[in-house]
């Protein structure tokens, strides 16, 4: 296989698999205010793609991070970000603010 074939196959593979916006699943919200995430435990359906919108209602910059989900996003004060998540197996997935270690950790529970 030469370089040209490698690039063409890669592009075809990428473009053909772009996600349909209607297939991205339901959106859930986690809000950060008063140095806490709310809800601290978010229940979501297992085995279906979903989105989590993180809203920062505080005056401090946060880094929303989940080690088990491999997600890391800075959220400006008053801003929000939306994370796309694949279908999760039933289980508990952590999240925390990496900029403030004293903020209590939260969990996304897929059932």
């Amino acid at each position, binding site marked *: *296989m030469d*370089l040209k074939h490698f690039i063409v196959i890669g592009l075809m593979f990428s473009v053909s698999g772009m996600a349909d916006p209607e297939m991205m699943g339901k959106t859930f919200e986690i809000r950060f205010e008063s140095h806490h995430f709310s809800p601290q435990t978010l229940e979501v359906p297992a085995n279906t793609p979903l989105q989590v919108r993180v809203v920062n209602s505080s005056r401090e910059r946060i880094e929303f991070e989940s080690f088990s989900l491999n997600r890391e996003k800075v959220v400006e004060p008053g801003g929000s970000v939306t994370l*796309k998540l694949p279908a999760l197996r039933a289980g508990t997935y952590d999240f925390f603010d990496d900029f403030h270690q004293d903020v209590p950790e939260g969990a996304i529970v897929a059932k």
Partner: protein
Amino acid sequence: MITPLKAALRYLPLFGLAAALRCAAQLDPWEFEVYPYSTNPRGIAEFETDNAAVVEGHAAGGEGTASGTLRSQGMWYNSYEVTYGLTDRVEAALYLNMAEPAGGGLQWAGDKFRLRGRLFEQETLPVDVGWYVELEWHKTPQYDDAVRELEFRPILEKDLGRFSVMANPKFEKVLAGVGHDQGVEFGYVAGMYYRWARSLSPGLEFYGGAGLIDHADPVGQQQHYLFPVVWGELPRGLEYNFGLGFGLTRGSDHLIVKFNLELERFVGAILRAPPDGGWFF
């Protein structure tokens, strides 16, 4: 439902494609690191030091990880890197490469500048895709007989449950110095990681290099390494990656120890936040 392990095996041929191509570029022993899809967020600076010590190497220059006149045996490759998130999708980094040969002192060995970015949002494509462009310069023939080199890497990542699979195929062109009149070299950097605990998780990393795209070196002269690694986060946000690298060919050094440390902090954004829905900047 497909288990993460089965899914990882399903995607392995894609990531193995790079390694299966019949050629590879020379290795960068100053940076045994696999790049993920994610980049430094806007305004975040990361300070990193990468270290690799050749415990069992070669006795003559130009062999193993040594590309210059000095031998690789006993060499300590030491680099310092500052990375800054220009936007949430593009970061810039500056490197200072140092080296200490066996019996010698720590010396300057070159500098690098790179830009790295990610395309779309995570999970938009079946495989998350990023890009990497690097310019390296040095006049240190004792470490590398090339003077200026340009490198491009597509970055591929797929998360499968707690597994992450990453591949960085490398395309490198010597712009000045020995090899400037030759073509493009191809190599690979790849890794498989399992997220077990924030403080300690295992992984396997693969590095290889074998020559020009249209004229690969004989297999015995190529370099291929397998690094079992542990990685994680220490208190105060200090992240580490420690591994033992085993050379898989005669042309490889036999044993390398690597230890990378990094720390990220918000230092302030210089560019405005891009509008939602972007895919490049």
